[in-house]
Structures are given as structure tokens and as C-alpha cells.
């Protein structure tokens, strides 16, 4: 559905008299198969939105090529636009217009008749829990309702490929969870291919078959969530030792099954009563460890085994946690200030 090779986007910037060039997207290759749900993950300013705007024909690539739904984004942009739905970060409807009018007009710009657009729009309002809001002004809607209205706008012409740009940013947890079910429905109900950008790890994890991670304009990983997590060496095992005097002893036992890190250093970490280490396939190794500890008369208050998260993946790949990357990243030059 999407094949991109060497996509580049540069922006001219100016700081005082100094002119500069920012490579917001720096040679991106992407492949998305039909029916896939792909999460495009990265910190703010990593180049997600810029890449998306190139794939949706809103921005002409500085270099590189991309075909979307079988059409070239530069030479056949009109056919691309006809085949895709795009739900942008900044909304799609006028604050003071009526929701239904906006949806019908949008459908008509795709060449639908007014009657078709109305019927299809009302059907979508039902599916996205927007019944009764046809005549409402978007400014009087809740954040979650407005996002769902944006999705209706993006689906009015029944596209087979849907782009969602940061669909849940700024929503409260409940509205977010609700929107997730609707996004999951896109494929379940209509078999659509979905490409969504997000900087929330849990969102990429929950919704997508495959995750593509972008940082500083470059793709740094593309795989299933499980495979990505497997790159992080082992699960985190955290023992809370009952007797403070036995902490060192417990650490020694844990060390016997723990990974050594790349420098061959001891990877066991002691923090008060807690002893932590990464263990390969902890589910298999932990029963042995427990027997070992019992034999040595070391009682535990608790034991926790944590599967790696995508944040661990990002940390392994970039040496930064995703949260740190967020705060240090420059603003995305194409994103709009709110």
C-alpha cells in the first residue's frame, strides 16, 4: 500500500542572519502491506508529521520517491488523494460550521453526490457514536467527539488506506481508550490499511501490527512490537529481599542467571532491599532462582518480572529514553503551533 524510498524533506531556517537547512526527514524507506496497521513512533520533532505530509501529497518531497495505494505521490497526486483518508492533527472542520454540513461538503469535494455524502455521513456518525450531533457546531463538542468527527471526515469517501496523525493527542484517558476501539474497528470492519503516527508507546503497542520508529528524521527500527522488545536483552527481574543482611547474598544468586552487559560487567543492580537484573527468558529461569534462594534461606517480600517496554527499546536503540528525547527535540517545522 505504501512504498517509500529515500524520502527527504529539508526546510530553510533562519536564525538572525544565519541561514540554515534542517533535514526534517533524512532518507526514509517505508513499506506497508495491504491490511496492515502500522504505528509510526517517534518523539516530537522526529519527522513523523513531515513524512506523513509527504505521503499524503500535502508536501512535495525534496528527494526520494513514494507510491501510495499504487500511485506516485508527485506525478499522480490526484489519484493518491482519491484513495486515501487523512485525519490531521489540527482538525478538519470549521469551529462555527455545522458538523453535518462539513461532512457533506467534504464528501462532495471527493465527487460524491449530496445525497450519497449525507447517507454515508449519517452512517458514520452512527458507527462513531456521534448520533444526534449532526447539527452541532464543532466548537461545542468535546475533544473526543471532535476527533471522531475528524475521522468521519477522513472516511467519508471510503478510502482503503487511512492516515491518522497523532489521533489521541490531548484527549483524556477515557476518550483515548474509546478512540482506540474505533481505530481498531477501521480494519476489523472495513479492512482498511491504517498508518498512524503517535508519540505514545502504549498507543503504538495496543493498535499496531508493526511499529516503525523514527528519530532525527531517520528510521531506526521497523518490526513487530514483540520482536522489537526481544532486542532488549531479557526481562527485568526485581527481587525485594525481606532481610536487609541477605541482600548481597540474593544479588549473587540472581547474578548466576542474569545477563552480563556488553562490557562483561556485572549487571545486577542493588537498590535498598531491591535487587534487579535483566534475565533472558525470565519465565523459564525464575523457578530455578526461587528454589535456589529458598535453599539458601533467603526470604522474599516480593518478586516482579517485567517484560521490556517500547521505551526500553527506544533506550536501547538511541541511548535516550523517549521522554528525554521529547524534551530535547527541536520543534517540528511543519507542525502548527496551537
Amino acid at each position, binding site marked *: 500500500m505504501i512504498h517509500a524510498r529515500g524520502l527527504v524533506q529539508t526546510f530553510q531556517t533562519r536564525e538572525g542572519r544565519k541561514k540554515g537547512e534542517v533535514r526534517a526527514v533524512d532518507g526514509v524507506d517505508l513499506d506497508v502491506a495491504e491490511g496492515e496497521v502500522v504505528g509510526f513512533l517517534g518523539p516530537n520533532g522526529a519527522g513523523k508529521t513531515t513524512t506523513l505530509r509527504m505521503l499524503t501529497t*500535502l508536501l512535495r518531497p525534496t528527494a526520494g520517491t513514494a507510491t501510495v495505494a499504487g500511485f506516485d505521490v508527485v506525478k499522480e497526486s490526484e489519484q493518491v488523494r*482519491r484513495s486515501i483518508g487523512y485525519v490531521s*492533527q489540527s482538525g*478538519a472542520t*470549521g469551529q*462555527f460550521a455545522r458538523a453535518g454540513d*462539513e461532512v457533506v*461538503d*467534504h464528501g462532495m*469535494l471527493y465527487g460524491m453526490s449530496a445525497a450519497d455524502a449525507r447517507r454515508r455521513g449519517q452512517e458514520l456518525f452512527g458507527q462513531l457514536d456521534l448520533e444526534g450531533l449532526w447539527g452541532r457546531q464543532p466548537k461545542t463538542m468535546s475533544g473526543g467527539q471532535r476527533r471522531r468527527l475528524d475521522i468521519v471526515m477522513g472516511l467519508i469517501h471510503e478510502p482503503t488506506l487511512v492516515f491518522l496523525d497523532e489521533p489521541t493527542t490531548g484527549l483524556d484517558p477515557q476518550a483515548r481508550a474509546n478512540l482506540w476501539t474505533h481505530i481498531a474497528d477501521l480494519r476489523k470492519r472495513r479492512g482498511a490499511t491504517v498508518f498512524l503516527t503517535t508519540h505514545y508507546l502504549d498507543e503504538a503497542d495496543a493498535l499496531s501490527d508493526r511499529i516503525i520508529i523514527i528519530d532525527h528524521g531517520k528510521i531506526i527500527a521497523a518490526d513487530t512490537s514483540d520482536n522489537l522488545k526481544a532486542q532488549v536483552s531479557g526481562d527485568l527481574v526485581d527481587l525485594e529481599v525481606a532481610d536487609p543482611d541477605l541482600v548481597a547474598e540474593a544479588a549473587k544468586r540472581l547474578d548466576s542467571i542474569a545477563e552480563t552487559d556488553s562490557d562483561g560487567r556485572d549487571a545486577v543492580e542493588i537498590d535498598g532491599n531491591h535487587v534487579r537484573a535483566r534475565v533472558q527468558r525470565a519465565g523459564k529461569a525464575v523457578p530455578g532462582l526461587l528454589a535456589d534462594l529458598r535453599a539458601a534461606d533467603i526470604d522474599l517480600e516480593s518478586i516482579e518480572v517485567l517484560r521490556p517496554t517500547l521505551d526500553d527499546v527506544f533506550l536501547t536503540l538511541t541511548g535516550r529514553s523517549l521522554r528525554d528525547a521529547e524534551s530535547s527535540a527541536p520543534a517540528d517545522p511543519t507542525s502548527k503551533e496551537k
Partner: protein
Amino acid sequence: MQFLRESFIVFRRQLRMNLRNPAWVLIGLMQPILYLFLFGPLLKPMAEQLGVQNTWTFFVPGMLVQLGMFGAFFAGFGLISEWRDGVIEAERVTPASRTALLMGRLWRDLLQLLVQALVLVGLGYWVGMDAPLGGVVLGVLLTLLVGGACAAASNALALTTKSEDVMAPVINVVMMPVLLLSGILLPMTIGPDWLQRTSDFMPFRWITDGVRGSFLGDFGANGVMWGSVWAVVLFAIALWWGTATFRKENA
């Protein structure tokens, strides 16, 4: 055909939103009325000095051009808030022609201007303006061309700056010389020679002269010809600029 249909969808949406805001409609209609009744009488005692027989026939065309220019200069502000709501981007991901996205908006601006112009001309006749119908029709046509040019330029500027804070001073900077040198309120001919020569460089002065000449039924005069030429040229340039901005990939 498809282009007209798309323009019409955009036009209808704009008109619907404007009509839903009655304050907007009212202000649009009040403008010409206020000028006519609060400024027009000031010219009456000056008729001799201005060298005109009927001050209304002199004043109404100036008001028309002013309406065409100044109302339309502000058209772009609405576009900025639409852009902020994401409407422009949403329209640009549809296969609709980019020119249609601009054209639909221009039609709305032109319709508004036409209604205002009809009100102004109607009131002008009522207070005693003496102008041939053919001249009035041509004058209104020239006004629509000027208004279309200003609206297209304003839309282009809006989509380029994307900020009211940048756009407002730019428009003020443009408006000052236009207002002072186009002879809208008082004819440039009563000024000193150097001021008249300076105003020769102001296309809007030629257009104002042209509309005045046409209201006097003076079609053969140079004024009407040059005014029409300038109106068409400005309209073509602004339309090209506006379309280019809407087409630009990163707008």
C-alpha cells in the same frame, strides 16, 4: 464543469457560514450607508471647488472603489482562522482543484461586494446622483474586478503569513498610500502638481478615475480606458498570485 462544481461547493460553504453570522451581514451593509450619509454631505459645499456639478455623482464612484478595495483586503483574515481549524488542509487532501478552493472564496467576496455596491448605487440615486445606467453597470463591473483582485491578494497573503499579527500591519502599510493617493475621497486634481504626479504611480487612482468617468457617461475618455486596463491587469496578477499560493505544496 467539475471545476465550477468544486468552486460552488466551497462558495456555498463560505456563504452559509457568513449568513449564519448576522452581525457580519449587517456590518457589510452598514458600511456604504454610513459613508454616504456621514461623509457625503461634507462634499456638498465644495462642489464648485471640486469642479463637479453633482457631488453625489462624484462621490458614489469613489465609495464604490473604496468598498471594493478595503472590504476585500480583510477577506484573508477569515482564511487564517480556517487554516488554524485545519479546514484548508482538509480541503487540500481532497482531489478538488486548488484553484477552485480559492475561486469559491472569491465568489463569496464578490457576491458580498455586489450586494453592497447595489445598495450604495440605489441609495446614491435616491439622494440625487445623476448617472446613466450603462455607466453604472460598467462602474460596478470595474469595482468587482478591483475587489476580486484585492480579495485574491488578501487570501494569498493570509496563506503565506498564516498569522493575523503579521498580516494586519502589512495591510495597514498597503492601505495608507492607497487611501491617500487614489483620490477616493477627494480628487487628486485639487492637489499640487507634485502630488498629482505621485498619484500617477498609483494604479487605484486610475481605476477611481475610470469609475468616475463611467458614472459621468464619459466612455470615450482616456480615464475609463486606463481604469479598465488597470482593473483587468490587477485582477489577473492577483488571481495568479492567489492560485499559486493555494497550489504551493507547503501552504
